[in-house]
């Protein structure tokens, strides 16, 4: 069980609302700082980031490319290449077990079986020279020490559950014979094989067409409610997760700039970056015309701007923003948090 002291700064900021307090906290990331030591300098990929995920809950980590949204979950899964990556601070706990600096045995017992992950590009995540069924069955053979025959049977059953038609026949095919949507289903089957408590999906629908996107999101949320998993969705697409996310964390330049219940975020984003981001998304209904946009480009993570990293692009920035970095602080009369000095004035 995760027992967390509330003394640390931003950790409890991201704690879920009281309504889901009966559910167990599964995964908890606290003040995580990840740096990449490169020839060009130190990349501050993630700075002091905290989030947690409860049973049966969906957390969306939103951000644009380079914002560090994938790095914190790669740290959880032990997927960061070290070197150059260095976990410079913070902790990652799975049901109370510390994962930062844990032995490879501990990591192996959690990764895949307790916390599983699916990726954006299923073609590069699947091995092209093995049959899809074999690859899914491998999880059972290694993870559950099943016999070849039993594992194959389970793989076919699982393929049927994730909506792959004719699973017996499809299991004998190779990844290149699968369409993008089917490959993503095969990846999901593989991730679900050991019945993980937490499923991390990194841009699961980005490579897919809209009609297939909808199918995959439906599948993920169906599986999530059946298994009462914690689901972490990492995406740049504000639309895809709108209907399924319970909570969101918005990342900018390696920091969480806003967090809170999804409905509050979408109805009334608090941070100027969130506001800019949401208003720059073109809509399928309502007025057309010049789009709102955020001026400028995201900063280089090697040379972050002083103070608030968003201040050079922020329409509301004041002198203080140039020198001081705002902490994530609670928004008055709301469950969410925002890292902006002007939050109250802007809402």
């Amino acid at each position: 069980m995760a027992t967390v002291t509330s003394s640390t700064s931003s950790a409890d900021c991201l704690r879920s609302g009281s309504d889901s307090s009966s559910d167990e906290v599964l995964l908890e990331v606290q003040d995580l700082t990840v740096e990449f030591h490169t020839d060009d300098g130190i990349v501050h990929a993630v700075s002091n980031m905290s989030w947690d995920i409860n049973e049966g809950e969906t957390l969306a980590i939103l951000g644009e490319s380079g914002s560090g949204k994938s790095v914190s979950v790669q740290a959880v899964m032990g997927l960061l290449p070290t070197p150059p990556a260095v976990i410079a601070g913070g902790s990652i706990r799975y049901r109370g077990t510390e994962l930062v600096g844990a032995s490879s045995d501990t990591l192996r017992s959690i990764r895949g079986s307790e916390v599983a992950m699916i990726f954006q590009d299923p073609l590069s995540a699947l091995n092209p020279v093995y049959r899809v069924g074999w690859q899914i069955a491998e999880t059972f053979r290694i993870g559950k020490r099943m016999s070849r025959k039993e594992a194959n049977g389970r793989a076919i059953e699982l393929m049927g559950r994730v909506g792959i038609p004719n699973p017996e026949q499809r299991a004998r095919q190779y990844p290149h014979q699968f369409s993008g949507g089917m490959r993503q289903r095969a990846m999901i089957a593989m991730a679900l094989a050991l019945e993980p408590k937490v499923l991390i999906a990194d841009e699961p629908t980005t490579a897919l067409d809209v009609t297939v996107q909808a199918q995959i999101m439906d599948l993920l949320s169906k599986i999530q409610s059946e298994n009462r998993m914690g689901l972490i969705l990492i995406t740049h697409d504000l639309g895809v997760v709108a209907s399924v996310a319970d909570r969101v964390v918005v990342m900018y330049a390696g920091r969480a700039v806003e967090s809170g219940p999804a409905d509050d975020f979408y109805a009334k984003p608090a941070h100027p970056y969130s506001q800019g981001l949401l208003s720059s998304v073109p809509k399928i209904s309502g007025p057309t015309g010049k789009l709102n946009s955020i001026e400028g480009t995201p900063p280089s993570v090697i040379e972050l701007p002083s103070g608030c990293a968003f201040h050079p692009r922020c329409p509301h920035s004041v002198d203080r923003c140039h020198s001081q970095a705002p902490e994530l602080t609670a928004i008055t009369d709301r469950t969410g948090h925002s890292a902006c000095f002007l939050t109250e004035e802007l809402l």
Partner: protein
Amino acid sequence: MSEQPLNPADDGEDPGELAEHRSGVDDDELLLDVRGLVKEFPQGSVWQRRRTGPVQAVSGVDLEVRAGQTHGLVGESGCGKSTVARTIVRLERPTAGQAFYNGRDLFAMSKSELRLVRRDIQIVFQDPFSSLNPRMNVQAIIEEPLVIHGVGDKADRKDKVIDLLDRVGLNPEHATRYPHQFSGGQRQRVGIARALALDPKLIIADEPVSALDVSIQAQVVNLFRELQADTGLGYLFIAHDLAIVRNISDDVSVMYLGRIVETGSRDDIFERASHPYTQALLSAVPEPDPVTERERERIVLEGDVPSPVDPPSGCRFRTRCWKAEPKCREEVPELVDRGAGHPVACHFPD
């Protein structure tokens, strides 16, 4: 080696036929008029080709682009929308059909005629990482079309590049930098500056913003809008993102497996969609608003787009359509107005 978009993929031998004039060409508003475009690709190895026959990527597409207006072409991956773009600029050789530019058929032109007309028609590609030569600096990239077409001397071209950089929202000092020193959005601006170098009348933009981040997408879409308002450019804007197409387009055509299934004004498509595929596509677009998202009725299509190698008979959408009847298997629905006020290729439109 050149990544210059003006280069034809083939030498396009002169079909002997001189450009014929389309009737009603006096309507000088109409820039591009594509009629019955078909593009087939040979399939399999050279030895297999005789047996398998070609794959039809585009099966009879009609499109119009008017000056100062944007025609949006939407569809999912593999529907042939990029092939339409590449064939119009003759990066691919068409199998059949005509494409009239100012009344002259681009597909029947000799190489030298085509070269002249290419100054007016430019293309902007999706991937700003692979469409710019990494060994050329921005000055060289943007002025290359001018060099090829022998426009101005060195000093003129330098001024022109600085002017173009300014028009696309970059600084003059960017001229000496190389593509890798730019972000995706800035690279796309360089690609647009290059397309604008010869003062074209028509720009074919093939997924120009889909590789960009949300906040940058909006900037680039706005840039397209501004350039059109300033110079009266016509756009054929190809994208899979329906919300972006809705934002920028005056007219919209929806493609499925090589055919246009519905076409009309923006509101015809987005407010009065009558083809089941268009309806499904629209209902699948996620909106960044949890309240409308939860209330919305979503048509979730079964399965995937069939392979163009072996498309379904009759209506190509019938294998995923909830309204399909035996007639859909037997008869190809024509793209005609069936009472919706705009053309729809469906036997049973709403």
